[in-house]
Each structure stands twice: as C-alpha cells, then as structure tokens.
C-alpha cells in the first residue's frame, strides 16, 4: 500500500467574521508520498486557499489535517513555524526571494531559520542545490541581478534546502515564458524522481497539469474532478478534456502581470 503523506477530513474554510464567505466546503483528500500532483481550477475556486492551508500558512476553519502522520490542526504558531520549516518547501509565483541576500544565502535561509545560526556551514549543500537548478556560477550574485527564470530556480533550490517531504508551488511558472516554463517543469520532475519529494502544484498551465501524476480540478470550493493521469499519455489526449479556463486564464494572468 502506498504511504499517505497528507490526509484531510471535512476541511472547511470560511473567510470574514460578519459577512461569512465559505470558500472550501468540507473537502476530503489523501495525497500519496512522492506524488506529483496539480491543482487546477478557475480563479476564485479555492485552489490557492487549499494549498495555503495544506502548507500551514493559513488556518482551516474546521476539519482535520494530518501531514506526515501529525495532526497539525491544534499546533500553535511556534510549533507550526517549525513544522513548516522542516517539512514543507514553498515556491511561489513571484519567486519571493530576499533581495538583501545572495543566491546561496537565500538558499541557506531555511536552514538558518531552523538552526538559529547564520554561518556558512551548509554552503556546500546550497552550492549543490544551485548546481541542481543549473545555476553554477551565480551563487554569490545578489538576487536583483538575476533574470526571472533564474530567480525562480533559486527559489526552487531554497525550497529543497531542508530536504522537505513536500514541495508546494503556487503558479511556479505563471510568470515565466514558455521555454523557461519547460525547463522549470523538467527540473521539478527530476527532483520528484530523484528525491521522492511530494509535489503539490497550483497551476493554470495545462502543459504542467497534463504531465502530472494526478490532477485535481476545483470549482467553487469543491473538488470537481480527481484524475490519475499517466506519464505516457499524450498531451493531445489530455487536451480533449482540459477545461477551457486553462487556456483563458493563462492569458488573463499574463495580462494582469503586465
């Protein structure tokens, strides 16, 4: 039997105190260890909310969340921060690197946070990770000197620093051109294969969705579809049942950024 890394039971999220707005309506979901999973859905469907709750960045209003066999529903702020640091790596749409630090320092940051020290003891690992994301020679560069794709790859290296069991990405390629998107995807897939890291990716990009092991489609706060794809499946086949918003939203997002 495949090991479950995340289990959620009857997960509800309500925003607002006076005007209540329920965005997730009692979700149940189990995610296997080492799975490469995409979450798709139109804007406002609750996919980012789900990801943030799974990543412990946001609290659920009710329901049970078990990650790595630990029920995090009752963790306090400090415990959650430590748990997040050790178990979860994040990659966001807008790289979210610290512009005050160099590439290698940004990669070491999760280690520094966890250990309370800011020495270079794990510099070697940071360099290795940067090599993994094909950024050899950029280690000591200040973040602001890097291109968009390079920044995103530094962010991926950073997410891997503490050897997390789960890597969560919210639109990791939403801000990149198609060629760079392809390279980032390859990278994520390689890491998934080599380190057996579980990937949960919120995306509008049908190419990435098509090549995931599993695709969850969210609509209006419900899980509408939960599909196990196969890597061999041709992209064409996927396109047949790819929701139309995958094409539309992709373009809309690009417009917004400009």
């Amino acid at each position, binding site marked *: 039997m495949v090991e479950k890394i995340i289990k959620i039971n009857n997960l509800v999220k309500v925003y607002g105190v006076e005007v209540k707005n329920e965005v997730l309506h009692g979700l149940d979901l189990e995610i296997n260890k080492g799975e490469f999973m995409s979450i798709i859905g139109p804007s406002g469907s609750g996919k*980012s909310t789900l990801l*943030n709750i799974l990543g412990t*960045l946001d609290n659920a209003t009710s329901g049970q969340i078990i990650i790595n066999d630990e029920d995090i529903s009752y963790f306090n702020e400090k415990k959650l*921060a*430590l748990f*997040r640091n050790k178990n979860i790596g994040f990659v966001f749409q807008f790289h*979210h690197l*610290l*512009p005050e630090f160099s590439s290698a320092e940004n990669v070491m940051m999760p280690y520094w946070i966890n250990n*309370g020290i800011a020495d270079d003891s794990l510099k070697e690992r940071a360099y290795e990770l940067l090599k993994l994301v094909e950024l050899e020679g950029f280690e000591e560069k200040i973040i602001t000197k890097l291109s968009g794709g390079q920044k995103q790859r530094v962010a991926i290296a950073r997410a891997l620093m503490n050897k997390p069991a789960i890597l969560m990405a919210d639109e990791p390629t939403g801000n990149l051109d198609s060629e760079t998107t392809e390279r980032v995807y390859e990278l994520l897939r390689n890491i998934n294969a080599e380190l057996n890291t579980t990937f949960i990716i919120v995306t509008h990009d049908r190419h990435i969705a098509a090549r995931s092991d599993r695709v969850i489609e969210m609509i209006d706060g419900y899980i509408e579809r939960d599909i196990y794809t196969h890597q061999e499946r041709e992209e064409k086949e996927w396109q047949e049942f790819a929701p139309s918003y995958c094409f539309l939203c992709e373009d809309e997002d690009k417009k917004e950024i400009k």
Partner: protein
Amino acid sequence: MWFEIKVAWRFLKSGKTQSFLILLGIIIGVSVQTFLGSLIGGLQQDLLDQTVGTSPHITIMSEDQTPRPLQIKNEKMVRLITFSDKDEGINRWQEIENNVRGIKEITAISPTINGSGFALRGQKNLAIVIRGVNIEQADQIYYINNRILEGNYDIGGNKILIGSKLAEELELKVGDSLKINSAAGISDRFIVNGIFNLGSADLNKSWIFMSLNRASTFLDLKDKVSNIELQVNDVFQAEELASLISKENTNIKAESWQENNQQLLTALQSQSSSSIVIQVFVIIAVTLGIASVLAVSVVQKSRQIGILKAMGATNRSVALVFLLQGAFLGIIGSIIGSFSGIGLSQLFVSLVRDEAGNPLFPVQVDPLFIIISITVATIAGMFAALIPARNSAHLSPMEVISNG
C-alpha cells in the same frame, strides 16, 4: 540569535539612505548630549574650584563663635571670621589638630589666628584682616607660594605678606616696614617680605599673613588659635566630615563650606536638573526618530517578513529582527555620537578662549556619562523598535504571498 542578527544587519545595510539618515539623527542627538553634559559638568567643576578650591572646606572654631559669610565682588564666596571678643578661640588646638590628622579624607590642615586691625602709613589708615598661620600649612589651602608677585613667602619673625591691592594703596614694596594697630590698640611695626595676589580684590586689599606665633602675641591670644581650617578630598563630603569632627571633639564646632554657600549649591542643582531635562528630550527625539524609521521599515520589509515566516521563522524571531535593528542603530549612533560630542567639546575649548589664550569654559568628559549615554540610546533604540516589532510579529505570511 545569529540568524536574526544577520538579517537585521542586512536589512539596515540594504536601506542605506534610510539607515544613514536615522543614524545621523542619533549621532547629532547624542553628540549634543555629550557636548552639553561635558560643558555643564566642566562649568560646575570650575565654579566649585573657584569657590572652594583655594579656601577652607571645613572651618573648626570654638563653640560660641559665630561665623559671618561675606559676599565678595567677583562673586566668589569666602568665609571671614571677625572677632569681637579676643578671648574666644580654641584651647588645646594641637590636640584637635592631631585628631583631625587621623581622618584620611582630609588633605590640608591649617591652624589660623584671625584678627582685625589697621595698617597705617603716612596719612592713610586702612582696615585689615590679620591672619596668623604656619605658612607651609596655609599654603596647602591658599597656594600662597604660587601667588607671590614679589619677594617670597617667608614670614619668620616680624616678616609679613600683604596683598597687591594694599601694597598699591599704601605704596609699599618688599622690604618696606609697615605699622599695624590691632583692634585692642596694640601697635607694632612689621616688614613686608612678600606681596601676593589671591585672585580677589577684597582679599588683596585686606589680608595680611604673619606667623602664628607673632599673631598670637600681637593679638594677645595666648595659646589659642581662632580656627583650624581644613581641606578635604571630595568637597561634597565636607558636610559629613564636619559633623563627624564636631561630634568627636568637645567645645568646638566644625562648619562646612556648604553651610554658607547654599545659593551656589542650589545653582549647581538647578543646572544639573536643566541638563537632565535637555537630555531627556534629546532621548525622546532620538527614540521617536528610530521608531518612525522602523515603522516605515516594517511596511517596506513586509514582503521579506512574510517570506521568512512562510519558511518557518517564528513571530518572535521576526520581532527580534526589528528589535535588533533598533539596538544596532542605538549602539552605532551613540558611539559615533559620543566621540563627535567629545570632538565638539575639544573644538569648543580650542576656539572659545580669553585674551590670554586660556579656555573660557572648562570642559570635562566623564567616561561614566558616555557609557550611560550609549546604554540609554541603545535601550531607547530597542524601545523604539517595540511597536514596529509587534507589528511585524502580527503580519501574516498569507497577506504578502497572495499579493505578490
């Protein structure tokens, strides 16, 4: 802690203009503080030196003798005892002198005979104050030897020392003889062996020094002295020591300089408190400056804070980053500020001088004061960072991440 220090330091370094401006603010604040503190401290010390530097700090007298303070024109306060009854005086003064010598805080002891008389020369007849002393002992209080203009300070036999003003008015030179009548009507001739300038017109006009023995016979005091004058190490201990001496010896009382210089003490105190008020306001201004800069910084760095939290930095940890920024600003600003304050005082001393080229204002740099300034500025910096730190702790990583 190292992680927070590194991040705090990097944040300060990345906002160069901002950090520089607030640092400049702290530097100016602290240097003004240091400068004012040094100046006021120096002025107080100078005032004290002028008042009690060359006069007795404690005067021992017989119990029934009343001292009379005398205001002298150049604003120095000098105590002067006049006798109405020459029978008053201290018996067995050698014994008291010995007792007092045992107190280690006492730096100078001078048994003194005081009396009034008249100096007569030609048609002129001037009132004078006769002071019989052992010149070596009196020198420790009045520094007579250093203040002799002509002749020397030997007062053996019939030799006396007179003030420059008296010499001028009576047209006396070293070697001249001078007739003096005591208040009791005894008349004698003395030889001027030295002319002094004690820095006060009044003393230069009225005081004459003669030997203790000579004064004793001239004023017919038998084996008594009028006072024993003392100086002590720390002038502010005088009062305490005076009451100790009064308690331990019978038939005498000891009075400290403070008792007759309440005005001066009040002036010193109000100076000190005005200096404290200035410093408090400087600190408040510095604190507000740091607080506002850090408040802006929290907003500017909210993205970074969110990212750090998303990666597992605790609320305490990010709050500490801002507290440390406040502390760094405080420490660096106040250290540079202290040094530039000292530099400013030295510059002031070298620029503001009288005709003779002596500094007009004495400046005293107190290391303790500097240490206190630095500590206070650092604490103020951290205090100023409290609210920004709290705000940063309350920031949710969600807000930043979802907004890009």
